[in-house]
């Protein structure tokens, strides 16, 4: 049974564009220029009930736009969308009772009860969804224990840290036990330990409640944490829809190593790209320790960071390896995957 069915979905925005140069702002004041942004282009997919699906893509890929269309907030320009059997933009009460949209950037409690403790916000949520008192107590206990926020729910929201706020906001987003959970970058800004805990929580919620979860992230490393199935969005196009194991084979076997020197990098450094006092190199994971051993002999190093390669490079690599149809990446029409 389908939870979500999307067919040939398109959405564009008009974005203001300020002129360049010294008088750009002045020209912009008198005459506005706009640019058309294609947030989603011809996106089609379907998701079955109880699936946990990750949507990966760089910033501006269209992930948030997609979730906002699925939740009925934005109107698509063309294409069809069915969510739990409803047309989202009609925003019928039963539909709204069955979904939740959560973003790590801000929450409903922050907007409504900033100076009050979360319990006051939960009471409001209880009445919004008409949850009976005893059931509300049971659900609150379940979520509070699962997210380990017992000590936080009676402290004014503004006094909580970002990570703590994210967790108490999640309780608010899930109190009505939705069948469809749309999570937009839910772990943004959190430390690794909190991120791990949240991923575990999402998996548990998915298993215990058989809810459908759609989670977006712009970190390629989150592919490991997300459900079995991954969608990759890039510049508004759906580039990949399938099992993450299949995708993992296509992921680059490299890390980006950045080494910052006290002054300029030594001239003896070969095969590294030099940017000011920083040397950069993409190194195969198997060669990482050897490479670090070699470079760490230099005592003028003040910082070393190891990151995933830029998303653009990852996507390019996936497609040049031929894991998916590379015509798609070049901008031609994507094959229908439904």
């Amino acid at each position, binding site marked *: 049974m389908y939870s979500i069915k999307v067919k040939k979905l398109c959405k564009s*925005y008009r974005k203001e564009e300020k002129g360049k140069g010294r008088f750009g702002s002045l020209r912009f004041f008198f005459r506005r220029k706009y640019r058309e942004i294609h947030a989603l282009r011809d996106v089609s997919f379907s998701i079955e009930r109880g699936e946990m699906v990750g949507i990966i893509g760089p910033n501006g890929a269209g992930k*948030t736009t997609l979730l*906002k269309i699925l*939740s*009925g*907030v*934005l*109107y698509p320009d063309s294409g069809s969308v069915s969510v739990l059997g409803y047309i989202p933009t009609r*925003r019928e*009460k039963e539909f*709204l*009772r069955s*979904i*939740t*949209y959560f*973003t*790590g*950037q*801000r*929450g*409903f409690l922050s*907007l*409504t*009860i*900033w*100076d*009050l403790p979360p319990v*006051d*916000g939960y*009471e*409001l949520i209880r*009445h*919004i*969804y008409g949850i009976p008192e005893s059931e509300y107590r049971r659900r609150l206990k379940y979520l509070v224990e699962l997210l380990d926020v017992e000590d936080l729910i009676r402290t004014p929201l503004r006094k909580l840290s970002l990570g703590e706020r994210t967790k108490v906001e999640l309780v608010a987003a899930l109190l009505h036990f939705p069948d469809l959970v749309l999570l*937009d*970058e839910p772990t*943004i800004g959190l430390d690794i330990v909190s991120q791990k805990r949240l991923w575990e929580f999402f998996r548990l919620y998915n298993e215990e409640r058989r809810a459908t979860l759609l989670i977006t992230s712009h970190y390629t490393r989150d592919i490991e944490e997300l459900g079995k199935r991954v969608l990759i969005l890039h510049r508004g196009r759906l580039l990949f829809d399938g099992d993450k194991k299949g995708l993992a084979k296509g992921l680059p076997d490299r890390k980006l190593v950045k080494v910052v020197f006290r002054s300029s990098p030594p001239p003896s450094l070969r095969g590294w790209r030099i940017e000011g006092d920083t040397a950069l190199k993409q190194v195969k994971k198997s060669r990482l320790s050897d490479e670090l051993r070699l470079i760490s002999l230099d005592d003028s190093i003040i910082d070393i960071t190891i990151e995933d390669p830029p998303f653009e490079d990852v996507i390019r690599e996936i497609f040049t390896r031929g894991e998916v149809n590379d015509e798609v990446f070049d901008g031609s029409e994507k094959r229908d995957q439904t």
Partner: protein
Amino acid sequence: MTKYLTAAKNEIKLNFRYRFNLLAFSTGLLFPLLGYVFLWKTAYSGGGRVGEYSLNGLFTYYFWALFLDYTLPVFAYGDMAWNIKSGGLTLFLVRPFSFLFYYVSIIAGGTLVWATVNLAVLVPFGMVFARYFIFPGLTDFLVGFLFTAIGYFLALLLGFVINLLAFYLGDPSGFRGLYGWGMMLLGGSIIPLDLLGFPLDRLPFRFLYFIPAKAFMGEIRGDILGLLFEDVLWASISLFLVFLLWKRGLRKYEAYGG
């Protein structure tokens, strides 16, 4: 309905969170009133007269106008426009919870607190200066209360119209300022409209301060029904505009932010 009552209850709690602010704001209400008392006392001491007003008439007018000024939601809730501009509206749209009724509830909750505290500050002040104050009879008080209630609704709706312009303009704060400050002159909060020297009878704004204040003073007895009709008509037009801007605005909403 209980969801909106809970929202109003939370707003009352939020207002009491910073108790000193409540008291400080309401005490501030006394400063312009004191200023007016001394200004008009000086003006009248030389035997002068301002229009048809006696000193007591002017004091009473400003008493009511300032009370209305601090109670009506004219400047209130700019964060409604901010939520539309910044994407906070999204978190309301994904719930079975009306954004507009949410604001009606919290504005009502806030008004309950502010009107009570304002009265608590104003009544002792009125008693000290009781010799200048014209007390309303029961009928005048009820008529004044009725015009205040409709004026309150009108101010709320006009405020919504301005805030909903955020769908179209992005940031309507300039319009909100123009509207708020303009209201003080066109509504009769700064100067009674019959002293302005030019007619403002065709605008809805006089129903915010001038007409309710005059009703409390028992000076509109001749045409209560005609004024009530006009007041309700303006409120209905504003209500229609709110729904129109909301319905069309939602299609233009760009839901910025995560």
